Structure formats: structure tokens, C-alpha cells
């Protein structure tokens, strides 16, 4: 509906603050970024909960929360890639699951080390992602329908891989990865998550393909005319999402010390990753955002979840809470074209039809 946004309205690249502006407005812009808001909100939720329940603020608990956010955080970084090109992938949860169970079984049965399993997990994820990308790009099926279809196919594959068993015992090296810390209080899992996010951010900012993702998401036609191979970029976006989802599978395996038939799906990781992307300030209309916001949003969701548990709310309501957060995030986002903020809706009840029809035919 929003059509293709003009490049004037949307900056292609999340400008690094402070290049041309005065120092003061640069600071202001930094403060108004979604990432800053997320950090403030996370700290706020954490402080309030600590005030009510002092045991919340122990280094063990902080570590635990950061660790438990990592499978989701890595998955959200992956989900960002397709969202940048106006896509969506609701098959990331079973991709994570397939990667987790297949590497998990190899590790359990043959004692394969995670160094060997990493390429396998990445390859599985990328392969499944490419399938999504081909359907979206060449069969031109809308992303949500494509990935709903592959969601049921991949979930079926995951279940049939597992059968009636489950991955329960992993070699000792995996436990070291889980419990070990690089520095005191900084666990390996957190380091992995941060490194993945930094690599993904560098990829988006510093490589041709990364820039092409923004260009295609912003304006397909302009990107095409600028000589970008649009279809190849689209398939790459889905491949990257799959690849990172495969990596998230390995993180999942290490964090949960096992995997089973419904891994990824039972934890609602599909919705949670989309929610993290949107709350992190990356839009589903493409070409805007980055991976740092979704990463921080995943941590925020996890901390908020824990806080709500501490407050004594029935955990059954957790999906509803995330659903509401998702609604709130898209309502607050005023940057998307054609979007009306709550205030606008309340003040102007009768939207006027534009005098001239827009140039583009809308779907």
C-alpha cells in the first residue's frame, strides 16, 4: 500500500550521527534512536523489578537473562535481513529447529565438535533459506505465504528427523560453551551473540551486498536501474536469514543442552523474532533499520518476560504480551509512509482523499 517510497524521504543508509551536524543535534539524534530507547527501557524494567524483588539484581541472574536471550537475538538478526528487502520469514523457527536437531544428533551420536558442526548448521540454514528465496523471487509468491508453506514443510522435516527421540546428551565441549565465561561474568554465548551482531552490522554497512539490501528494500525500481541484480539480492537476503537461523540453531542447542521435535516452534520463536525486529526499529516496509536494534530488542523482550514472571503474572499470557508489544511498536512507528500516529487518528477523524491520484497503481 505504501507503494515505493521516494529516496528523498527515506535515507538509504542509517547515517552515522554527527557527520555533518553540529555536535548537539548529533547527540539529540543519538538519544532519539530506537537503540537508545531500548537500552533505557531495558534498564528501567530491570531497575523497577530489582526495587520490588532484590534477588533480581544478581550477576548470576543478569548472566542468565542475557544468555537466554541469545537464541532469539541471533534469530532476530537473521530476520532483519529479509525485513530490509520488504520480506518476512515465518519459517525461521523450524530452520533453527532442523539445524539444532541435525547437529545435535551428530554431536550426541558421534561426538562431533561444534567447530565441525558450525559449517553444517550454516549450510542447512542457507539451503532452506534459498528455497524460500527462490519461491519469493522467481515464483513471485508473497513472502508471508511462501514461508507459511515452507513453515509446515520444514516443521514436518524437523519432526520426522527427530522421530520419537530427542537430543539429550551433548559432548562436554558443548557444556563448556554453555557454562564457560570469557571474562568473569561474560559468558561465551553472549560473546557469540555480540560478535554475530557486529559482523552482520559491518556486512550491512560496509559491503556492496549489504548496501544493495537497503537499496532494494527502499525502491526496487531505482535499485534495478542502478544496476543492482534485484533477484539475486532478494535470494541472498533469504539465504542470509536462513544462514543466521542455522547459526541460531547451534546457539539454541548449546543454550538448551539439547533439542527435540518442536524446538523453535514451541518457544514461539517465529513471532518473537518478528516482534524483536519491529521493536528494534526495523520496518517491514523495507530499507530501514539495522541489526543492533533487533538484537537489543530481543534482550529487552527477555528481560521484560522475566520481570513479568517475577511480578507473578501467569506465564501463559506471555504470547499475548509480545503480541501487544508488537502492535504498540508498529503503532508508534511514524516513519513509515502512509502511517498515521495515534494522535493524528484522534485529531483528524475524516481523512481526505488526495486530490490527484497517486502515480503508482496500488495493489
Amino acid at each position, binding site marked *: 500500500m505504501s507503494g515505493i517510497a521516494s529516496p528523498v524521504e527515506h535515507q538509504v543508509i542509517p547515517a552515522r550521527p554527527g557527520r555533518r551536524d553540529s555536535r548537539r543535534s548529533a547527540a539529540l539524534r543519538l538519544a532519539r534512536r530506537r537503540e537508545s530507547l531500548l537500552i533505557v527501557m531495558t534498564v528501567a524494567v530491570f531497575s523497577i523489578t530489582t526495587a520490588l524483588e532484590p534477588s533480581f539484581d544478581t550477576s548470576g541472574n543478569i548472566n542468565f537473562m542475557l544468555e537466554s536471550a541469545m537464541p532469539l537475538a541471533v534469530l532476530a538478526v537473521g530476520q532483519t535481513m529479509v525485513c530490509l528487502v520488504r520480506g518476512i520469514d515465518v519459517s525461521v523457527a523450524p530452520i533453527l529447529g532442523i539445524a539444532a536437531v541435525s547437529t545435535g544428533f551428530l554431536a550426541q551420536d558421534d561426538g562431533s565438535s561444534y567447530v565441525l558442526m558450525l559449517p553444517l548448521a550454516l549450510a542447512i540454514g542457507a539451503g532452506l533459506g534459498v528455497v524460500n528465496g527462490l519461491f519469493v523471487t522467481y515464483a513471485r509468491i508473497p513472502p508471508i505465504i511462501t514461508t507459511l508453506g515452507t513453515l509446515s514443510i520444514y516443521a514436518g522435516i524437523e519432526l520426522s528427523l527427530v522421530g520419537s527421540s530427542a537430543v539429550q546428551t551433548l559432548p562436554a565441549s558443548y557444556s563448556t560453551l554453555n557454562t564457560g565465561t570469557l571474562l568473569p561474568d561474560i559468558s561465551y554465548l553472549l560473546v557469540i551473540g555480540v560478535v554475530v551482531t557486529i559482523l552482520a552490522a559491518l556486512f550491512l554497512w560496509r559491503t556492496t551486498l549489504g548496501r544493495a539490501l537497503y537499496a532494494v528494500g527502499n525502491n526496487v525500481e531505482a535499485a534495478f536501474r542502478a544496476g543492482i541484480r534485484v533477484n539475486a539480492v532478494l535470494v541472498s537476503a533469504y539465504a542470509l536469514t536462513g544462514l543466521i537461523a542455522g547459526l541460531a540453531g547451534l546457539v539454541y542447542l548449546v543454550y538448551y543442552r539439547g533439542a527435540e521435535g518442536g524446538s523453535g516452534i514451541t518457544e514461539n520463536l517465529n513471532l518473537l523474532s518478528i516482534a524483536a525486529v519491529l521493536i528494534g526499529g526495523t520496518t517491514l516496509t523495507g530499507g530501514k533499520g539495522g541489526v543492533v536494534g533487533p538484537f537489543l530488542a530481543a534482550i529487552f523482550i527477555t528481560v521484560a518476560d522475566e520481570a513479568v514472571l517475577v511480578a507473578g503474572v501467569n506465564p501463559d*499470557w506471555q504470547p499475548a504480551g509480545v503480541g501487544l508489544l508488537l502492535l504498540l511498536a508498529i503503532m508508534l512507528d511514524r516513519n513509515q509512509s502512509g502511517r498515521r500516529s495515534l494522535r493524528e487518528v484522534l485529531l483528524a477523524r475524516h481523512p481526505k482523499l488526495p486530490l490527484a491520484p497517486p502515480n503508482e497503481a496500488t495493489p
Partner: protein
Amino acid sequence: MSDLQPQARPRKLRRFDVDQRWLAALVGILTVELLVFNLSISGFWSGSGSSGWLGTETFTFTSIIALGVMFVIFTGDIDLSVGALAGFAGIVMGELHLGGMNIWLAVVIALLVSAGIGLLQGLIITFFKLESLLVTLAGQFILGASSVAYEGAVPPSSFPHTFVKVFGTGTVAGIPNQLLIFAALALISVLIVHRTRFGRQLVLVGHNRDAAAYAGIRVSLTRIRAFTLSGLFAGIAGIIIAATFNSVTDYIGTPLLLPAITAVVLGGVNIFGGSGRVAGVIIATFILGLLTIGLLDDGVGNNATSMATGVLLLGALTVKGVMDRRIGLPSLGDRLRGRLPPASSAHSPEAT
């Protein structure tokens, strides 16, 4: 899209051709399927057992949900909350009945609640100009969680005998009640879409929202009505599920979303809205339903059946896409090379 072109008329005729051919193909597939099951399943025609051709308890509710989503897809939106809403309607009905309410009153209230939830989602989507995809995705999870929380420790079950008979297991002259309810709803849907002003508005809104607005159609109202109908149909499906299994659980609804959407697009309704035939959707629900019956009868598990649904969805859309393009709809490459104005983008999530 195509009506902007000077050569609009021949293209429109050929477009009509696609719909006709698709319908013919669906009838063909259904015939083949019936023949195959006629040979492979003994007693296929004889009864309404779970492997008979009237073994509707395996798919009628999916078909009813599909009819509801169809209205929304016609307008170019999508409703991902219908499965969860069906489950929620069943839970509401069951809990009200457990609380001592008359079962029929509980049914009416559950239907009103589900239509109201559809209405609310439509209002949120049109008032705030949000993507239906996201709002209904959030709705799916809110409804799912509400079902779990409302249901409590003991899921409602053991409904009155007459209720179970009327909406579930009963038959009239050998035909299951569920099938009769579905037939009635299907007939109503055909009449709404193809014989009323609202139906024409529905399709035009999906075909070209701006054109509809300039033609004086209240686009938002039309979309809201579509979402309300979708909610109501999901509610009816939820009641039928409750009666068929004589119990409701929180997780029963959500998996029905995918087969319902599959039935709609397999039935030839354009996923971007604006074209399609209700008859196609009705035939497609039978194709899918019989496939489920056949696969389950062959001893294939639920898991593989759901995989087959996914394969069918992607396969049908790929084939339909190829057919559409052969017939002369502009391809993305054509549009980008400037031969045609940009139309709907396959890569826009909102286009769904």
C-alpha cells in the same frame, strides 16, 4: 493494473480465461482424486465414517474458516488470526456453558464475540493504517494466549447431547449436519460475493483501492466488513469443532490457518486481492479435505499431511503464477524495464 493499459479489453478477456481454466483444472483434480480414492479406499462411497466421502468431520471446519478468510483476501488484506480465533470461540462457548449458561445462548455469545474480534481487528487496521499482516499476527498470539488463560486447568468438554448432534455428529437424510451447515454458508458466500453490491465492492477494493475510493466506495468500511465476516465464520468453525470433538482445547484452532489459506489460493483467489471465484474455493476445500482423508486412510501421519498441504500451497501458486504470466500479465522484469507502470510488488508484505 491491467485496466490502465490501452489494450485493456483483450487482456481482461484473457484474464477471465485464466479463471475459467483454473476452475476447470480444479474440477479435473477433484475428479481424479475421487477416482483414486474410489479404488484405493474400500467403502469410500458407503458411509460417513472417517474414511468415507462424507467423512466431513476431518475438514468441514477448515472449509468454513477458508470461506471467511476468502472475504479478507478478496480485499487484498490477509487475516492470520482466524485459526486462533476459531479455538478462542470454542473456548468462550465452552467456558460460558461450564459457568451454567444455556448452551444455545453461549453459542450466540461466542459468535458475537468472534465477529466483534474480527471487527476490532478491522478497525485497528483501517484506523491506524497498519498492515493487516502484522495486526492479525499479533491477534493470533493474543487470542492463543487468551484461550490458554481462559481455559484454565480443565478444558471444557461433555456438552449437551442435542448440541453435539446439531453441530457435530448428527445427520439429516444421511448427510452430515456439518456438511449442510457448510453448504449453507458456501451458498451465502457465493451470493454475497457474486450477487450483491457489497461483493462487487469487495472485489474492486482488492483490485484497485484508489479506483474504489474514487468510485465512491467506502474502502475502510468494506475492509472492516470483510474482517467481521472472517471473524464470524471462524467463530462458526470453532463451535463446530467443539461439537465434533465434544471438547475444546486451546491448541486446536491455530493449525487450521495454513490449510484454510491454502484452500483459498488453491481455489484461484488472487492472493493480492481483486479476482477469484467462490466456486473455486469451495471445490478446493473438497480437494484438500479428501486429500487429508485419503492420506490419513493410507496410514500417512498428520505430520506428512500438513507437509503435503504446504507443498500443495506452493505448487498451486507457482503453477497459477506461470499461467497468469503466460496469459500476459506483466512480469516484474517487464515492469522494471519500463514497459509498464509499476503495479503491485510481489515483495511487499503489505501486498498480501
